[in-house]
């Protein structure tokens, strides 16, 4: 029930944004995220944006895994 999916903000007004979810356009509520701009990436949960996300989706994780592997004997 806590699943959220990533999307990109295409257009927005005060309370709602049109977003692109893997090529599909959808309207979502954006009342829960401050300082949102067109072009931002967000996580969507049950029709609401709940968080902004970093552009580089896996970059941080990839670097972390590489570090773990480099560290290991």
């Amino acid at each position, binding site marked *: *029930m*806590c*699943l*959220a999916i990533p999307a990109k903000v295409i257009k927005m007004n005060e*309370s709602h944004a049109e977003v692109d979810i893997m090529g599909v356009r959808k309207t979502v*509520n954006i*009342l*829960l*995220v*401050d300082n949102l701009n067109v072009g931002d990436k967000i*996580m969507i*949960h*049950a*029709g*609401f944006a*709940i*968080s902004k*996300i*970093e552009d*580089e*989706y*896996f970059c*941080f*994780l*990839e670097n*972390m*895994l*590489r570090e*773990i*592997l480099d560290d*290991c004997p």
Partner: protein
Amino acid sequence: MTQEEKRLIGETVAQVNKSLKSDIRIMEVCGTHTHQIARFGIRKLLVPKIHLVSGPGCPVCVTESGYIDALITLLMHENVTIATFGDLLRVRGSSDSLEEQKSLGRKVITVYSPEDVLNLAKRNTDQNIVFAAVGFETTAPLYAALIQTSQKENIHNLFFLTSLKRMEPAIRFILGKSGVHIDGMICPGHVAAITGISPFLPVTIEYHIPAVICGFEAMDLIASISILCRQITGEIPIQFMNTYKRCVSDAGNSAALRLMSEVFRISDVNWRGIGIIRDSALILNHSYEEYDASKRFGLKIESVPAAFPDRCECSKVLIGEETPDMCVNFGSLCTPDHPIGPCMISSEGACAAYYGFGGGKI
């Protein structure tokens, strides 16, 4: 998934599997993690020494039967429609489920977003719409936004029967319980996206258990399990970590937290199979009581003892004391098509996740 990601996962898994000398138990407390771990077949990648056990984070599984009974009582009112997320439909109260009531012609509507409920209320002004507001902190701010919007737009036929729960008291309950041994914890990424990291810090700071805030992709899970294993084996010092930084900031979502504190206050609630956990509920603040279905319709949610059918082990599965395969009904008498207990009803319940992706095997 790219070839590079696959390679990294493969190498990390091999490294984790090699490093373990004795059995360890890692708990995921989020039902969505439970589902994803089963979906990606993570258990099958890891050596049997690593036991991934599920916690109480499937909101539908822990919703008490008295709450379902209260929703069913509301359906007896001529002009009441219950709106709910689909997962809750099949959960039984002390006798019936909403699905059974719906088949009898009662007005139960499944929605995908709280916004659908607002439109439903606007379109059906002759009906009182009661939204079954179930969930954890990921979903609670959505209800809060909806309630505030209803107030602003002067909507008077929309009500909420809440069974909203907080993660931190549940985690403290489990970690403080004797008989439940956990070496590491995978903390819920989307709850933390709202709350920030503070509710989860005590796992490491007070209980000295390695803990990681984790995302929901295979790579997130493998990275987090690897970090936990390295801490558990003493390879690196025990420290709280956030591997889901692309979505979870330390402070969380300030707009959502502000809204939640305006609309809700903290109370106690009964968790199905677990009992009352103090301060684990979010209920409507006095200033929003006009939206409280229990006040509007004079309802009381009775704390009936967990109605688990014969030999259902959900109460132990929900706190990680047992895994689904330890229940005699698992995969034989109890399957997703014929569920006996709540852990087999929701796709995020441990029993359904294990069964659905393991073909009945773990």
